[in-house]
């Protein structure tokens, strides 16, 4: 009565096959990441030193450190964040909490998704036209950061909107039925409970922004500037562009240097992603419903 039939055995075989296939695909996914990290650590590791991180490049960038690029990337990211986070969070709040569900709202949502799909080089040209030339910011941190901000805005909006929507509707209704306005509801209930998701979105944006090259190439980043930026209207070096330049444009760069730059860049990104995950775990642990 309970013996396996031929049909059962064949089902089990197919089941095993698919399981193996999916497992294999997952390994294929992890493999490149592991390889990249391995190669970077192996070949770039020897380049990393206190001096590499905190001194100026020397000898036409074939020696010395990467300090201006490191500082420049921090500038670019921070200014981009200041520009994009308030706008993105406000837009997401409008779309999620205020906007009626009509054709216009759906069109805006669609536009945001499409904006996220625009290639970064197109954003770069837009930034060049809009911020550098039209608004006369020149090639500067400001123009480059605004370009980055426009490019990452959809990410902030989508992440914020999604985390707003994880707050159960019942809480909002409870507030509204007590006579609370939308804004009172947002401030007292929705935002405090969505903040972990929003922070995660913001940090992911940071990590993405710090690696972008194309949008800053025409708008504010330069190949070589032997001093640190003093304000947002200065040009600056940046890690991503520096990596591009010493890998392709400068002769006789010692081989470990580009790997070292890449290692520093990817470490920054991974550290920020790690921070984002830690944040999320911490804030999730605190909220219970």
């Amino acid at each position, binding site marked *: 009565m309970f013996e396996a039939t031929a049909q059962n055995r064949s089902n089990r075989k197919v089941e095993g096959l698919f399981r193996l296939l999916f497992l294999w695909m997952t390994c294929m996914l992890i493999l490149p990441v592991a390889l990249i990290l391995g190669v970077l650590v192996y070949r770039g590791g020897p380049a990393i030193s206190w001096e590499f991180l905190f001194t100026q490049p020397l000898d036409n960038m074939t020696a010395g450190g990467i300090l201006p690029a490191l500082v420049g990337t921090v500038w670019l990211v921070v200014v981009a964040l200041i520009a994009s986070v308030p706008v993105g969070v406000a837009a997401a709040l409008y779309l999620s909490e205020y906007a*009626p569900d009509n054709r216009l709202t759906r069109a805006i949502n669609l536009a945001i998704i499409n904006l996220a799909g625009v290639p970064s080089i197109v954003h770069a040209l837009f930034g060049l036209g809009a911020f550098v030339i039209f608004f006369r910011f020149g090639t500067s941190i400001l123009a480059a950061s605004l370009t980055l901000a426009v490019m990452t805005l959809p990410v902030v909006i989508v992440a914020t909107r999604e985390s707003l929507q994880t707050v159960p509707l*019942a*809480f909002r*209704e*409870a*507030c*509204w*039925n*007590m*006579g*609370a*306005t939308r804004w*009172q509801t947002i401030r*007292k*209930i929705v935002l*405090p*409970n969505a903040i972990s998701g929003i922070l995660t979105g913001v940090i992911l944006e940071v990590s993405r922004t710090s690696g972008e090259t194309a949008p800053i190439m025409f708008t504010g980043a330069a190949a070589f500037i032997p001093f640190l930026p003093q304000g947002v209207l200065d040009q600056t070096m940046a890690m991503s562009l520096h990596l591009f330049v010493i890998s392709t444009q400068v002769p006789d760069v010692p081989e470990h240097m580009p790997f070292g730059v890449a290692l520093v860049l990817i470490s920054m990104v991974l550290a920020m992603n790690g921070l984002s995950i830690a944040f999320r775990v911490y804030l999730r642990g605190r*909220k*219970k*419903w």
Partner: protein
Amino acid sequence: MSVAEPATPGAADASAAILVEKLNLWYGDFQALLDVDLRVRAGAITSLIGPSGCGKTTLLRSINRINERLGYVRTSGSIRLWGLDVLDPSVELAQLRKQVGMVFQRPNPLPLSVRDNVLFGTRVHLPDGRPPNRAESDRIVEEALREVLLWDELKDSLDRRGTELSLEQQQKLCIARLLPVKPSLLLMDEPCSALDPAGTEAVEELIWKLRGDYTILIVTHNMAQARRASEECVFMLLGEIIEHSDTASMFLNPAHSQTAAYIEGRYG
């Protein structure tokens, strides 16, 4: 506290807390309420019974106008609370909802501490033009929790999250949350249907205790509950009010055959 005195101009009938006249309501093309006339006695508990989809929740939700949020709802007729028409465009919804508290089927405490749940209304409405200070807050919290019979259980855990309490406590907390802004009318939409029998009994007991201080309109699916916990009973069917009488006589001696059939459980 006593029933809000009908300090209202034009209150023809002082004992009516709610006076609904010729209320029709459409969800899009579907008419959910047909010429509903209803008079709810002030200070009493009135239950609304009837099969699913008969419009009792719709009627309840029309009274504090939360139906309108759906956007595709149209109404005609009038709903007067203490003589004032709540469907009038000049009505400030925040004030209406302060006067008319609502309790839901599923307890919906806010993800805040017990204390902040109770104080939420005062922070939204600022009855004295400012948030209550520490001493006032303590008094408000204690009063409200005492009134819903939660004080002894929760006085040492006011910092616990409302959402962590048992369902029975949550539902009582949801009722307590309404009281600090001094509503006159409490609407309850099947307030016990998510609770176990013991919780149901405790919440019914509480509702019964609040009678007199508040006018209470309660939707229920539970015949026994309507019978136990209400003084007047309204039977609705397909968007119309079929019968409205005091609870005892409706259950003993229903005037309409449809009411009798429903009460006896022949449909529902």
